[in-house]
């Protein structure tokens, strides 16, 4: 019988303390460093801190689409950095980076860490269409399988078959999230969406139609991670890091798009990390009020809800349609924009601080995920009691 690991001691003792964004656009006309610096400065100020208080920076990039953390530390005139972390990863990174940052502040390696994602993801190199050669690509590029929308479409089809769900369940995710986005001034897509419009939209790669896919944008988002003790003296209510997990199962693949070694394409990393995640938080799925699930495509929301135990196998579409449990209240990456899940965490922070405008659901606890395929990370966040 599998048992969760012991609770890591930084959990419950570290917090998210500020968030910052740039505008999300289709052509920023600005450098990625400019975008990163704006979002990081905004997050630091939001926490009630100055750049001189921050001595750690963490970020990630894909296709060399962003800038090193040292560039941001330099641009913001940070007097010195004690902890920098740059990862070559995609959407699996945001919760993982917050976890690493929380450990760093808990262990005293840094006082406050700013974690960011910045990219000209629409006007620059686009993840959705650019090649990303890796050790596994020789066995998919020559047959015409070249993009994440293709890889995840294969997972989505098998997931729908094995769970008895349909493209209607995918559509329900897109419609529900757009309704949230209509109330989010940051969201790139805010026009009302409907099941009828969804069914009339062209396919990209079956079962995905255009509105099943995230919208690529230029922009940046950042959050600040601090010790809980320090957080209690800052400008905003602390959002406590209660639980954290990362999982890469057996057969995680040769590169970020290689699923050939993964046995069951109807279950992603969320199924593998759920036990550790809930164990680390000393909470159960029924204890959370809100979920912010990584959604480069609609299917990953359904798979994540089931993987985390928030819905029964085959029941995620019904949960989304019922509308009683809030999911992706910013509209998700589908509607707000593709900042690779950093904005998914930021929305959770705003919700738990009661700062999400008329989207605020009054949640005390929230689960957040990062990633779509073989590996990924997650956090359980909570208000400070």
């Amino acid at each position: 019988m599998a048992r969760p690991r012991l609770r890591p001691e930084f959990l419950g003792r570290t917090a998210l303390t500020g968030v910052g964004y740039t505008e999300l656009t289709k052509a920023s006309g600005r450098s990625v460093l400019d975008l990163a610096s704006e979002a990081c400065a905004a997050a630091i100020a939001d926490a009630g801190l100055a750049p001189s208080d921050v001595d750690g920076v963490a970020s990630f990039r894909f296709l060399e689409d962003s800038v090193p953390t040292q560039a941001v530390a330099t641009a913001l005139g940070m007097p010195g950095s004690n902890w920098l972390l740059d990862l070559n990863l995609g959407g699996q990174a945001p919760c993982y980076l917050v976890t690493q940052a929380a450990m760093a502040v808990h262990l005293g390696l840094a006082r406050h860490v700013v974690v960011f994602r910045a990219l000209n993801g629409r006007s620059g190199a686009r993840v959705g269409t650019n090649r990303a050669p890796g050790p596994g690509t020789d066995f998919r590029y020559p047959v015409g399988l070249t993009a994440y929308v293709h890889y995840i479409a294969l997972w989505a089809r098998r997931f729908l078959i094995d769970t008895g769900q349909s493209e209607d369940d995918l559509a329900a995710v897109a419609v529900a999230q757009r309704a949230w986005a209509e109330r989010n001034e940051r969201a790139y897509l805010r026009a009302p969406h409907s099941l009828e419009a969804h069914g009339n939209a062209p396919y990209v790669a079956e079962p995905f139609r255009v509105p099943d896919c995230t919208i690529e944008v230029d922009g940046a988002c950042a959050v600040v991670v601090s010790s809980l003790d320090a957080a209690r003296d800052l400008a905003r209510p602390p959002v406590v890091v209660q639980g954290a997990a990362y999982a890469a199962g057996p057969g995680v693949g040769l590169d970020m798009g290689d699923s050939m070694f993964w046995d069951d394409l109807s279950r992603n990393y969320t199924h593998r990390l759920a036990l550790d995640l809930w164990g680390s938080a000393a909470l159960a799925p029924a204890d959370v009020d809100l979920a912010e699930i990584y959604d480069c495509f609609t299917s990953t929301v359904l798979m994540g809800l089931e993987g985390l135990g928030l819905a029964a196998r085959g029941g995620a579409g019904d949960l989304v349609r019922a509308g009683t449990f809030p999911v992706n209240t910013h509209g998700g990456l589908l509607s707000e924009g593709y900042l690779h899940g950093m904005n998914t965490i930021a929305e959770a922070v705003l919700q738990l601080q009661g700062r999400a405008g008329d989207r605020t659901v009054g949640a005390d606890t929230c689960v957040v995920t990062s990633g779509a395929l073989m590996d990924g990370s997650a956090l359980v966040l909570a208000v400070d009691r």
Partner: protein
Amino acid sequence: MIPPAGDVDAASFWAALDDGTLLVSVCGSCGHRWLPPLATCPRCASRDITGAAAAPTGALYTWTVIHRAADPAYANDTPYTVGLVELADGARMYGRVVGVAPGDLRAGLALAVRVRRGADGPIWEFVAT
């Protein structure tokens, strides 16, 4: 077609494909069969690896019909179907599924593997049995 970059671990795979044979990796220690080729068995880490002709048939595990090519190399191919096929010997691989109407695609569909010489070199594909 985007040609393979030619990883050294897969050199014998591409050489065999050029001769019309689809080669799967076989572990001499545990018998596992898989693709893409690796110097080690991904099940038991043995280095006793050989190649063997793939089982000629398999079953469709999942698929996608691609309507918009993400890469310009395939812009003239749309719509096209790519499947993940489980060969009868247990190895899995992606490949084009040709000659099957989208409405006839289903999990478990029996398919046969075929090696074809395209304008840019040899490539495997799957056809209805």
